């Protein structure tokens, strides 16, 4: 994928979104490939992350508080790994970064835009334009072939994209699935399915990629394969990747590891 495409497929609504938050439109539209060195006046860049975010579910005695005042920023063009024991709030953190969950308190930034005040429609637009998702359970559309799944990714980012089948085929070729593009998800191995899911997430060049346990359902070889693909996204295309995983193999691919424990950040390794 040529790097130039990155800049012009990015959110058209970004200026509108940005104008609603207190960040400038110019900074919202910016998604250049090089790590973002620009610093906003008085604050450091808040490309992606949460500040003093607290999340709770339920009421009264049944109330759980998976995140308590967590602050963490992810720099543009970096690969971050979020680890921690089960129930420590990793998925909750990722959901906030993906505009799928709003914190009770605190702020969420995506592509330099404060998103937790935005409407559902605006958050949907941000997910559509800026964020690619990879799930543990793949979440491919069962009735669509591999190529149609990826093409749907292109279609969602740009409904007018007429070359989406060709582009989907190109992506699948790149991930070694060129000859399986017309198979349905249930005809593919878990590793192949996850590669299709990654291709779908990458369709349309989102600047951000969020993955929750992407290798938990895969064998060692397929897992490494996915790790390498995600790493390449950072190195070759300057995407920002956040992976949640229990899997220690990811450490060697990550620029930085954040460990959550009991709703709080326990450790930030190689903090950038």
């Amino acid at each position, binding site marked *: 994928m040529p790097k130039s495409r990155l800049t012009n497929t990015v959110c058209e609504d970004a200026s509108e979104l940005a104008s609603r938050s207190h960040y400038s439109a110019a900074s919202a539209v910016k998604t250049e490939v090089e790590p973002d060195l620009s610093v906003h006046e008085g604050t450091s860049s808040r490309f992606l992350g949460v500040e003093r975010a607290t999340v709770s579910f339920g009421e009264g005695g049944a109330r759980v508080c998976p995140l308590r005042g967590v602050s963490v920023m992810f720099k543009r063009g970096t690969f971050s790994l979020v680890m921690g024991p089960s129930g420590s709030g990793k998925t909750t953190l990722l959901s906030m970064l993906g505009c799928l969950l709003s914190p009770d308190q605190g702020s969420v930034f995506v592509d330099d835009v404060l998103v937790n005040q935005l409407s559902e*429609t605006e958050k*949907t637009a941000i997910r559509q334009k800026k964020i690619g998702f990879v799930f543990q359970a793949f979440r491919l559309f069962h009735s669509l072939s591999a190529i149609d799944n990826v093409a749907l990714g292109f279609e969602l980012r740009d409904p007018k994209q007429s070359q989406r089948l060709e582009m989907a085929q190109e992506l699948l070729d790149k991930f070694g699935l060129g000859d399986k593009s017309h198979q349905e998800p249930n005809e593919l191995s878990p590793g192949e399915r996850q590669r299709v899911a990654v291709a779908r997430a990458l369709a349309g060049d989102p600047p951000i990629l969020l993955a929750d346990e992407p290798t938990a359902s895969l064998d060692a070889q397929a897992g490494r394969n996915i790790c390498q693909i995600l790493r390449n996204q950072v190195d070759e295309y300057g995407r920002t990747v956040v992976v949640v995983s229990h899997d220690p193999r990811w450490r060697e691919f990550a620029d930085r590891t954040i460990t959550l424990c009991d709703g709080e950040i326990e450790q930030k390794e190689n903090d950038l």
Partner: protein
Amino acid sequence: MKLAWQNIIHDRSRFSVTVLGVSFAVFLMVFQGSLLVGFLRAASRLIDASDSDIWITARGVQAFEFGTTLESRVREMAAGVPGVMQTDRVCMAFAVYRTPKGKQQVVALVGADPNVGKRFPVPDVPELAGEISPDAVLYDVSDRDLIAVPVLPTEVEINRHRASIERQIQGYGAFLGVPFLFTSYRNAIRYLGFGPDDAMYVVLRVSKGSSVSDVKQSLQERLPEVDVLTRDEFAHKSRMYWTIKTGAGGAILTAAVLGFLIGLVVVSQTIYANTMENIEEYATLKALGAPKSLVARIVLTQALLCGAVGSILGLFAVIPVIDHAKSLIPWIYMPWWLPVLMVLPSMVMCSLASIASVRNALTVEPGRVFRA
């Protein structure tokens, strides 16, 4: 949008159930609709077949089949009203029919003067002169089993009078199970034992230049003891009698509405189940940034596809069945606009059925994508 198609193609068995539900409903609606249209048509077909402007009936006659004799002076007085150009007589009464083999059958015997109407089936019209005798008896082809004549002409008995069945006609088959026989007026009153001047209905034509309503009014003034109705009024009264007052129309309509409702239930059940089965995929779609309108469109497209395919299938099934039913229910009638019209409710049905599904697909939490 491809997702909508693919979901349908992929889950064929579920799709078939939905389509069957829709086609069942369309079938029932078209069939019952044809019954209703045919019933309405049959209820007034002899009145509609007359070329007259005005019908005079005994007071309170509700339908053509239930006439009673008028006094003979009615016709004379009517003929004297200014603007009345021509008066003719029509009678109808039940009679006992005996086949050549001696089988007995109740029939409705209709007699009319030759000028009542071009489409009114009587033997003594100039067009048939020479082909059949003026006192011939005609019967509808759909009643051939009841009339049971091996060849034409055949001598039979009507109310113990000799009669000659000479011709088959079409479009006037048994209504409510009793076959109709048609003959000339003077022949009919002979079989029925009416006096020479008795008539059940006096039908009349208004001369050119006179207004039907004016003539009707003067007739009513001169003949206060009878009902004077325009042809359309009497036709309407007859239809209303059969459909509303007897409840037959209500029964037919109820079945059509039931068909719609049953279809609605079947279709909403399957569309709903289908949506719920794929609810995780709708959540994924929303998480990936699909706007609500797209999600709604996908669910609705699936429903409407079911509606379209189901309608077509239902129509393909109902048309031959109606054709076949004509031998049992000769008056059933499917006008061309009926199937066209039924596609609309079936689409409405599918849209209604998908409301709950669309709501669920729209309200599903996209955040659940990371769970499970």
